[in-house]
């Protein structure tokens, strides 16, 4: 046991000697959570609108006044048709409202900068609804689970899915490979210490670091970001621990497959980071992808983890709703750990 403890101490000292990396590791998740929580959203607010008015009448004044008082719009001014064109191209405005009065009948046209498709669509919808007047709509809208439609809610699970892969898989694989490069690993492997102990000694510090991060991120999510706290938080914790172990196993597996640090980085970067960001449903919904890529996404642990976290943290559903995801993650963990242990022994 004392060998094990001294191995861990060595690893922790090694980590602490590089305060910059530790800082990045600890600060980045916080920055990401805060950015997603407060800065980044896909909602459209503040459409910059230009008006081109053919003939000023009481009706056009009333209409423009409605836009001016609407918080969704910034009326940038009333301009001549050719100016509107220039401003749209320079990106100084998002949409133009053209008002014409023909024989007492007011007609309007909306010109959008459709180079940003989402903005153009939403702007059109907003303009139509303001222009048609605030007649009482016969439809009432509610939002379930996420009443303020905060995008932070959607991103918290995604960020956690990404960070653990980054730390557990990338850091462990690079750290094991760097030891092999400097051949201190051989030194350990010829010593009477059993390979199992060596591996555990490598993994435990990163496991502890990940637990620290898990605590940090959950605290932030439930306090600063205001995610609703409920008993399901407990399930979030054990599910995350399972995911962390899986990610550590992946890191170990990569380290047995490559021989240089750069290769370890590229492999874990290309094989883990990019798919996690692109295919796990973190940013882009899985169901919008082509079927082939949806199939690929099934192989990505983060996809299952993130979808389970969404169920637990946002929908707050009972634990039986995440059984399939948990089963898949457990199976993956088993396979990865078995493979890694086997490979690592052979490599001796």
């Amino acid at each position, binding site marked *: 046991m004392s060998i094990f403890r001294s191995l861990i101490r060595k690893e922790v000292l090694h980590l602490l000697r590089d305060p910059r990396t530790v800082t990045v590791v600890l600060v980045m998740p916080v920055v990401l959570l805060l950015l997603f929580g407060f800065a*980044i959203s896909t909602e459209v*607010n503040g459409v910059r609108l230009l008006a081109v008015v053919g003939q000023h009448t009481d009706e056009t004044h009333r209409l423009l006044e409605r836009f001016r008082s609407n918080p969704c719009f910034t009326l940038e001014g009333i301009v001549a048709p050719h100016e509107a064109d220039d401003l749209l191209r320079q*990106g100084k405005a998002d949409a133009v409202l053209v008002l014409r009065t023909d024989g007492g009948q007011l007609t309007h046209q909306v010109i959008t900068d459709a180079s940003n498709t989402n903005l153009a669509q939403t702007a059109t919808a907003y303009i*139509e609804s303001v222009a048609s007047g605030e007649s009482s709509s016969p*439809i009432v809208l509610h939002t379930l689970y996420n009443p303020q*439609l905060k*995008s932070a809610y959607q991103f918290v699970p995604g960020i956690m899915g990404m960070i653990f892969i980054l730390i557990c898989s990338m850091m462990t694989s690079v750290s094991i490979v760097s030891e092999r490069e400097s051949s201190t690993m051989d030194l350990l492997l010829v010593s009477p210490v059993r390979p199992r102990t060596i591996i555990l000694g490598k993994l435990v510090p990163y496991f502890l670091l990940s637990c620290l991060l898990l605590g940090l991120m959950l605290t932030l999510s439930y306090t600063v970001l205001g995610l609703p706290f409920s008993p399901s938080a407990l399930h979030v914790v054990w599910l995350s621990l399972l995911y962390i172990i899986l990610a550590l196993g992946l890191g170990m597996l990569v380290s047995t497959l490559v021989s240089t640090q750069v290769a370890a980085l590229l492999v874990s970067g290309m094989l883990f980071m990019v798919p996690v960001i692109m295919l796990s449903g973190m940013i882009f919904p899985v169901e919008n992808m082509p079927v082939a890529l949806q199939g690929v996404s099934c192989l990505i642990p983060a996809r299952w983890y993130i979808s389970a976290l969404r169920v637990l943290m946002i929908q707050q559903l009972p634990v039986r709703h995440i059984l399939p995801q948990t089963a898949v993650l457990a199976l993956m963990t088993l396979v990865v750990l078995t493979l890694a242990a086997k490979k690592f022994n052979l490599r001796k």
Partner: protein
Amino acid sequence: MQTRILRILLKKELTLMLRNPLIPRLIVAMPLLVMLVIPLVADLDVKDVGVAVVDRDHSLLSRRLVADMDASASLTVTAVCDTYDEALRHIERGDADVVLTIPSGYFRDLSGGKSPHLDLSANGVNATKGILGAQYASRSLLQTLTRWSAEEGTALPEAATASVLNRYNPTLNFRNYMIPALMVVLLILICGFLPALNLVSEKESGTIEAMNVTPVGRFTFVLSKLIPFWAIGLLVVTVGMLVGWLVYGLVPAGHIAYIYLAAILFTLVMSGLGVSIANRSSTLLQSIFVMFAFIVIFQLMGGLFTPIASMPRWAQVLTYAIPPRYFIEIMRAVYLKGAGIADLWQQYAALAAFALLFCLVAAKTYRKRE
């Protein structure tokens, strides 16, 4: 200026790059991967919105509302339920995004001149899909109601319909919005990571010390690290533009020279940053993590996936310090709107300033002597 030394150093960099087993492949594979896969994946368009209907009215009108909704392009009625709880379970299982409740007596009340309400509940877990789905659903409901009232001769408030002209991207194709920006992603990744990797691995192999003890000047050495990535950046942009043209049929509306000019400036920004970080790092892991932090923030705050206009005021101010912001604006404007330097000189000026700044920092932080 040590032109002769610079020339031999560049030759060395080029030879090393070509002999590296990974880099030439990366330069070709990355653009293909990013340009072919991401547009398939990065689809924020909302299609296939599932609607679970709770029809308590069971009238001719309620059935028509449901049928029209199912017939509309982006909406599918996945279940017709008897109770709201049952509909909610469809949401929990994920096969519906919106619940429509038609109250009992809706048809009677509407015909009787009252104004009854239809009730839409959107799933807020995926905010974009929920909100847009609910909007689509309510648009479909309104259309049906308008048509119905026209047929019945009863007056519902007339919805003013405007003609809409979508400039620059008339088909509202989301890919046209993404593809120019993807080339920015490519340059961020390739020109950010590779110089950092290159320099740190020279540090680890000790060759950088062999250089430090020679008369090679600081600027010459840093230039020999920056210029190759300049060339690689232009190559990558070219491959990206070719893929955009051949695969997606998207060609820049503006002059290609404006794109190259912006790309040159931006590669300098990124490789300058990469070299500066590598100068300050002692291990590979360290430089990669610091670089990674920059890249994540660049991608998120640069207006790539989410529009800058949607950010709160303070965050919008912050984005002025994020160089990719300007490059993304230039790429989209030149590609889709056919803009030129006259329209975009502010963005070019900002990029040039950043390029100068980062290259100076790169040269300043490179120490030949401890």
